[in-house]
C-alpha cells in the first residue's frame, strides 16, 4: 500500500468516525448518569433532517447545526419525560424514540429528499497542516471535526477532573444514595439526557451538512446503534471512545482499502462490514465480561423513583 492511499484512508476514517464519536460521547455521558437511551438513531435522524431543512431554507450552515442540536434535545426531552416522569422502561422508551424519530424525520423531510446544500468546506489550519503526513491527515478538515475534538476534550476533562463529573457518576452509580446526600438526581439525569440529545443532533447534522450534504430517509444507517456498542467497547472512557470511533470509521471505508488493493467485491457485501465489525467487537467485549461489569454505571437502565 502506498503512502497516498494510506493518507486517504486515515483522512476518510476521521471523517466517517466523527458522527459516531459525537453521538457516542453524548450516549456515554447519558449512561454515566444511569440512563440508557436507545433512541440515538432516532435523534440523529431528526438532527440530520432538521439541520438540513434549517440550513437549506436560511442559507446558514451554523443555523442548521444549532437547529439540529435543538431538535435532538427536544427528542431527548420527550424520552426524559416518558422514562423519568412517567417511569416507563428505558429500553422500550428508547426503542420508541428511534421508531418515532425515523417516522417523523421521513415525514418532515419528504419534500427535501434528494436536494443538496453547499456543505461545510475544509478549513486548512495554517502552520499545523504543513507537518508532514500528520498535517494532511489531521488539519485539513471541516469545522465540525475540529469542534468534535474540542467537545471530546471537554467531556473527557469534565468526567474525570471536575466536581460536576463526580456528581454525574455518583448519580449513575447509585441514585438513591445520591438522593440521600442531597444531589438533585432528576436534574442531573435530565441534563445528561439533554446533552446526549444535543450530541446526537450534532452528529446528525454532520451527516446531512458535512459528510454528504443532502437529506435521504434513514441516512444515518444505524450509526446510532453502532455508537451504543462503541460506548460499551470503550468501557465508558473517553479516550477509548475516540480510538473506537475512528477504528469503526476504517471499517466503514474498507471498500476504499480493498479497492486500493485491487480486490473486486460487491459494494453491497462491503457495506455490511461496519455491522459485522460491531458484532465481532461485541463478541470481544462479551469475553471480557468482568471488565464490562466493573466499568458500567451500576444503576444503568434502572428507573429512579424517589417515592419508593
Amino acid at each position, binding site marked *: 500500500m502506498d503512502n497516498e492511499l494510506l493518507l486517504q484512508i486515515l483522512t476518510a476514517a476521521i471523517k466517517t468516525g466523527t458522527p459516531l464519536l459525537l453521538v457516542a460521547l453524548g450516549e456515554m455521558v447519558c449512561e454515566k448518569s444511569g440512563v440508557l437511551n436507545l433512541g440515538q438513531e432516532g435523534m440523529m435522524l431528526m438532527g440530520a433532517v432538521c439541520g438540513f431543512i434549517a440550513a437549506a431554507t436560511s442559507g446558514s450552515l451554523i443555523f442548521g447545526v444549532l437547529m439540529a442540536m435543538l431538535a435532538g434535545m427536544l427528542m431527548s426531552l420527550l424520552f426524559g419525560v416518558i422514562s423519568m416522569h412517567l417511569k416507563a422502561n428505558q429500553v422500550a422508551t428508547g426503542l420508541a424514540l428511534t421508531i*418515532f424519530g425515523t*417516522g417523523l424525520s421521513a415525514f418532515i423531510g419528504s419534500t427535501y429528499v434528494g436536494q443538496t446544500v453547499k456543505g461545510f468546506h475544509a478549513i486548512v489550519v495554517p502552520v499545523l497542516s504543513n507537518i508532514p503526513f500528520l498535517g494532511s491527515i489531521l488539519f485539513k478538515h471541516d469545522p465540525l471535526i475540529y469542534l468534535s475534538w474540542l467537545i471530546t476534550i471537554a467531556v473527557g476533562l469534565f468526567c474525570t477532573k471536575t466536581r460536576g463529573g463526580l456528581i454525574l457518576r455518583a448519580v449513575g452509580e447509585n441514585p438513591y444514595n445520591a438522593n440521600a446526600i442531597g444531589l438533585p438526581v432528576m436534574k442531573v439525569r435530565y441534563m445528561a439526557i439533554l446533552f446526549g440529545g444535543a450530541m446526537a443532533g450534532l452528529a446528525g447534522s454532520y451527516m446531512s451538512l458535512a459528510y454528504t450534504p443532502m437529506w435521504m430517509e434513514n441516512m444515518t444507517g444505524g450509526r446510532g446503534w453502532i455508537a451504543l456498542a462503541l460506548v460499551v467497547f470503550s468501557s465508558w472512557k473517553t479516550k477509548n471512545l475516540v480510538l473506537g470511533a475512528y477504528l469503526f470509521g476504517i471499517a466503514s471505508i474498507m471498500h476504499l482499502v480493498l479497492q486500493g488493493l485491487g480486490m473486486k467485491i460487491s459494494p453491497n457485501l462491503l457495506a455490511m462490514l461496519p455491522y459485522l465489525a460491531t458484532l465481532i467487537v461485541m463478541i470481544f467485549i462479551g469475553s471480557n465480561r468482568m471488565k464490562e461489569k466493573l466499568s458500567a454505571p451500576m444503576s444503568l437502565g434502572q428507573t429512579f423513583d424517589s417515592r419508593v
Partner: protein
Amino acid sequence: MWQFQPRTFIPWYLQLISPLIAVFLTILLGMGLFSFLGKDPFHAMHVFFLSPLSDGYNMGELLVKTAPMLLCAIGLALCYQANLWNIGAEGQLLIGAVVGSAVSLQFSDSAISVWLALISGILAGMCWSGIAIALRQWFNSNIILSTIMLNYIALYTLQWAVHGPLKDPAGMGFPESAMFSDNQLLPILIENTRVHLGVLFALLAAILCWVLLRFTWLGFQIRVLGHDESSAHYAGFSIRRLRWGIMLLSGALAGLAGACEVSGPIGQLVPSVSPGYGYAAIIVAWLGRLHPIGMCISGLFLGLIYMGGDMAQIDLGVPTAITGLFQGSLLFLLLASDFLLRYRLVKVKSKETQHG
C-alpha cells in the same frame, strides 16, 4: 391534595384501557397534524381508517398487510415474555424472503416449489435468530444490538441478492428476481382478493401461541422465566434451552413471514420486500399486550395504518412516511399511558385539612 402513588396491584381492565387511550390519542394527534397541514381532519381520518374497510378487496388487502406483522409479532411476544429483547424480526423476515426466493427459483419447475420455499424461509429465519441467541448465550452479547446489526446485514444481503445472484437476466436491469410461476405461488384463499395461505398461517400461529402460553408446561415455564428469572432458576427449568427455543421459534415465524411475502402478494424478490413489518411488529406486540388475541387486534390496527398511509397519499397527497409517524407516536403514547398501570392518583389529606 392529589398525588400519584405506585400501585401494588394492577387491575386487569387497565391492561385494556391503556392501549385504547394510546390509540385514541394517536388519532387525535393525527387529526391535529392534518389540520396543521390544511386538510379537513375528519375527512382525513375517514380516508385513513375507514376507506381501507370500504370493500371486499380492500378488506383482503388489510389481511395481507396484517399477516406478516402478526407472524413476526407472535415470535417477538414470546421473546418479550421471556425477557429477551429481540428487535431482529425485520432481518429474520428479509433473510427468510431471500433464502425462500433462492430455493424457489432453484426448483421453479417442481410442483412443491412453494413448499420448499416456505421451509427454507423458516430455516433461514431460525439460523438468523440463532446467531443472535448464540452470541447472547456464549459471549453474553447484548441481544438488542446484535439483532439490530443482523437486521442491517440482512438488508444488505437482500440488496446483494437482487443486484447479483438472484437478479432476473431478462429483467431489463431492474434489481429484481424473475417473476414467480404458479408452482412458486401460495394458493389464494378468497376469490378476487390477494388473501393467500400466509394469512391462515398467521392466524394458526396466533392460536397455537395462545394454546402454548395458556395450557402447556412449556408456556408456563416461559411466563415464569419472564416474570422472575431467579424463580425459574430455583424451579430447575432449563433456562438456556428455553431461551434457545423461544428465539429459534421467533426467527422461524419471521422467516416464514418473509417467504410468504415473496411467494404470496409480491410474487418475486424485490428490494422493498418489507416496508418495516419487522419493526412494526414490535408495536403490534406491545399494543396487543403480548397476548395472541390482543395482537390479532393490534395487528389489524397497524395494518390499517399501513393501508391508510397509502390511501392518504393518493387521496390527500400526504407522503406515505406518515405511516411511520403514526406507528412511532402510537408506541410512545402507549408507553406514556402505561403510567396508569403503575401509578394511581390518590387524594392525600394535607396537614391543614386534617387539623381544620
